[in-house]
């Protein structure tokens, strides 16, 4: 079945540094979604990418969908302590949303 792999598992940064998490699928994805989960909280939808090569921005967050629609990335510029949490990518297969393992981001002030 489809696997969605996400790296790194953990990332520790100093406040102000940039952060990137990568998502790779074993199969072509129709679309990909990104979620953020704060410590002790629940996943919250951030964005969906549909088109090959698509790039979307939300303030300091930049999301990319690969040309082959098998990989995606989330880049945060100049991290802040409010960015702390776990970031998940998720891809659809057969109507089911399959999540990656997530990247846990910690930010040292």
């Amino acid at each position: 079945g489809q696997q969605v792999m996400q790296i790194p598992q953990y990332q520790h940064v100093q406040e102000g540094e940039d952060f990137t998490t990568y998502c790779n699928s074993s199969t072509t994805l129709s679309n990909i979604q990104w979620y953020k989960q704060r410590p002790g909280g629940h996943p919250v939808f951030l964005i969906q990418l549909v088109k090959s090569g698509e790039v979307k921005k939300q303030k300091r967050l930049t999301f990319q969908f690969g040309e082959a629609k098998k990989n995606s990335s989330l880049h945060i510029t100049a991290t802040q302590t409010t960015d702390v949490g776990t970031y998940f990518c998720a891809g659809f297969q057969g109507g089911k949303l399959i999540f990656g393992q997530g990247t846990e981001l910690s930010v040292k002030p």
Partner: protein
Amino acid sequence: DAGITQSPRYKITETGRQVTLMCHQTWSHSYMFWYRQDLGHGLRLIYYSAAADITDKGEVPDGYVVSRSKTENFPLTLESATRSQTSVYFCASSAIIGGLSGYTFGSGTRLTVV
């Protein structure tokens, strides 16, 4: 998100007991889902439902039972709880699959099986 609620928030049960986790949404979303979250595994889909009386298995359905007699409710039952089912369980809903608003998750139920 007050529109999707899970109960209880915390539950401790003994091995072999039956336990039901509740999920209720007020948006009349067609789709509802149950995920479990464990360290190192992210979120894994247990069961999902496309509408009332329509359910289907996800990635890890063994040991779980679901029903959906009403659109707004999607309870998850562990028929005979095992320690390996200790986890955080999230319910989610969505109006459509692949929609631009994504899935909306409940606050979760932390289940401990002793």
